[in-house]
């Protein structure tokens, strides 16, 4: 190996690593029934919801952290975390703009997420801004309400639309689904709730921006999206957190219900703090995301760009019950330094002529480990099911790892399932070729990585795609060794 490209591993530029000094109401550390009752009472929840939480908690106590992923997960002390942190002055959820702490407003401005509607990103994106455990503000609520669309924090939905929440909450991801789903169901705080009525095409992008701020807390958001017959919505999710030496826990659940001929497009740019170049700090990201295509011709499309977190454990999945329903999963996962990711999807084909597509692009650098794990399951009644999977890995340097764990479980002989996988490496010859044409090494990596990931990036809404491209280059800065 030459030493020409060997560079000092530069400190990764994580520009969202600041903290906000805001008066935050944090409940005492630790997890027990009393804490769960406190969370529930602060949110003035109905009994059925408290009951749901307590059942989930009881179940969680019987479970242990899953060990099957290709991850080295340190022991997490669940008693050392605070499960609720409220940076808004009053404990009663979102307020008018005037009532929000200016520091909180400034934080979201700094993140490029203005909460004043007139300053909105493209004028066509509504935002639910969540800091720590509480939704700070949801924009364009009124304009959306004119079309019958409900877009609000889940706490508010529990108060104002209890029948909808009760009907769908936990119907896609049961609290018994897994260890982290049980934990989330017990202690979940804010997240977004979306309901698109029959026949309505949501006129703007809906988005939630999650921000962890307070130290020593975990974030346990919960998002529920329901798309009624013949409706459509595109939903975006972004996440950042301050740079801290200790690890922070994030265990979320996203549930999507899609009815006849409706379509939900869910895009994520996950940029939680990944830890420093020595692997100190960073967010532990344990997320259960699942969509259920319940109707005829329902469609769910997941697109994710995962660049952050010290550990990512996440498998956005589709249950394709409705005949002719469609599931898609497009993913770019980047790991650098000592980051670890085990991510992928499950496509569960139950209905006839259901189709799914999986495109996964892993990029590993530094000492990181990046695994794709995917399940394609075809049930007995899923006549004519089709799946196409493509899993590519790109390696930078020789100290990182890439792994692919595809599982297939096929119970219908008419199914057609295809799987392709490649592994490639950015070579010194490629970089030098770019250099000779006048392209700096960092830019050359950006060019190659974005070229490699473009099939996925093209699926993102425009503004997001541009952000994601920049993020990919920044995440890999100083990674050529």
């Amino acid at each position, binding site marked *: 190996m030459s030493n*020409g490209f060997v560079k000092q591993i530069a400190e990764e530029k994580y520009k969202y690593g600041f903290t906000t000094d805001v008066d935050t109401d944090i409940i005492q550390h630790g997890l027990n029934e009393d804490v769960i009752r406190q969370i529930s009472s602060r949110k003035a929840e109905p009994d059925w919801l408290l009951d749901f939480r307590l059942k989930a908690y009881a179940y969680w106590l019987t479970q242990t952290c899953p060990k099957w992923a290709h991850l080295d997960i340190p022991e997490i002390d669940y008693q050392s975390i605070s499960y609720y942190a409220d940076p808004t002055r009053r404990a009663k959820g979102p307020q008018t703009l005037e009532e929000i702490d200016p520091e909180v407003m400034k934080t979201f401005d700094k993140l490029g997420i203005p909460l004043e509607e007139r300053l909105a990103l493209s004028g066509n994106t509504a935002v639910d801004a969540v800091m720590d455990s509480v939704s700070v503000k949801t924009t364009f609520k009124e304009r959306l309400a004119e079309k019958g669309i409900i877009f609000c924090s889940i706490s508010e939905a529990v108060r104002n639309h209890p029948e909808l929440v009760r009907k769908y909450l936990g119907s896609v991801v049961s609290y018994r689904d897994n260890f982290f789903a049980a934990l989330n169901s017990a202690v979940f705080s804010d997240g977004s709730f979306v309901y698109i009525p029959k026949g309505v095409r949501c006129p703007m992008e809906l988005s939630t921006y999650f921000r962890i701020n307070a130290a020593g807390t975990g974030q346990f958001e919960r998002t529920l999206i329901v798309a009624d017959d013949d409706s459509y919505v595109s939903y975006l999710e972004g996440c950042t957190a301050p740079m801290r030496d200790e690890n922070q826990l994030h265990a979320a659940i996203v549930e999507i219900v899609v009815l006849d001929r409706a379509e939900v497009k869910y895009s994520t740019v996950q940029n939680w703090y990944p830890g420093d170049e020595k692997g100190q700090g960073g967010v532990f990201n344990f997320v259960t995301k699942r969509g259920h295509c319940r109707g005829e011709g329902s469609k769910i499309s997941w697109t994710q760009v995962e660049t952050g977190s010290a550990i990512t454990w996440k498998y956005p999945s589709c249950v394709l019950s409705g005949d002719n329903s469609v599931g898609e999963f497009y993913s770019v996962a980047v790991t650098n330094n000592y980051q670890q990711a085990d991510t992928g999807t499950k496509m569960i084909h139950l209905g006839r002529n259901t189709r799914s597509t999986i495109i996964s692009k892993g990029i590993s650098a530094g000492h990181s480990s990046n695994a794709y794990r995917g399940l394609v399951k075809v049930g007995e009644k899923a006549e004519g099911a089709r799946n196409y999977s493509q899993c590519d890995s790109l390696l930078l340097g020789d100290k990182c790892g890439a792994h692919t764990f595809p599982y297939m479980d096929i119970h219908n002989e008419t199914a057609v399932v295809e799987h392709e996988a490649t592994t490639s490496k950015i070579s010194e010859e*490629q970089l030098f070729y*770019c250099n*000779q044409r*006048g*392209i700096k090494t960092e830019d050359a990596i950006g060019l190659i990585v974005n*070229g490699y990931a473009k099939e996925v990036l093209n699926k993102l809404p425009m503004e997001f795609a541009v952000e994601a491209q920049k993020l990919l280059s920044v995440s890999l800065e100083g990674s050529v060794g």
Partner: protein
Amino acid sequence: MLKIENLHATVAGNEILKGIDLEVGKGEVHAIMGPNGSGKSTLSNVLVGNPNYTVTEGKITFQGKDLLSLPPEDRSHEGIFLSFQYPVEIPGVSMVNFMRTAVNEHRAYKGLAPLAANEFLKLMREKRALVGLDGKLANRSVNEGFSGGEKKRNEIFQMAMLEPVLSILDETDSGLDIDALRVVAEGVNKLHTSDNSVIVITHYQRLLDYIKPDVVHVLYNGRIVKTAGPELALELEEKGYDWLKE
């Protein structure tokens, strides 16, 4: 324009260049010939700053600047272009993106604003015509799945786009049939003006039938052992290299 003095260089610890002296003037075409292993490719790689090659002694001055102190991308910005013997494939990166990045980094180095998309595409079209590459090129990944001839033509196309002051053609004739050779050579000749210079590195005389050198050097065992006019190439074709090895 280019002055090489007492250049010594090693690859993986082996000394390949053992004291090269060479001067190329503005507008001149120099041919460097020599048997396999004489150091021809090492010389071209050292000129463009390939990090696998280490300069142990000597000096290279390019347009008054100390070339060895510049990183490879700045040597490119200063106007040195290498047509690679083995052009590298970069899957996923389209030619149009690749060239736009390269052209704009060159412009930035000169303090110019990036080219607008339509101007850039127009430039691509113009330069493409020069080497007879078809329009589909723009959407194909850099060199991926290109035939040997297409790769070499693509090198000359990039040369046309970047308008170098000094072009180094490293065994550009290898792997080309006679028709492709003619197209490539014609491209080089069209681009050659009294303001830019060319170094043609080749084994054989045949490329020099199309690209006429002003000076021919013979490189042997890391040194230039003979320098003469174009007639030297013909002599080598006839007699081989052995007579120069004493």
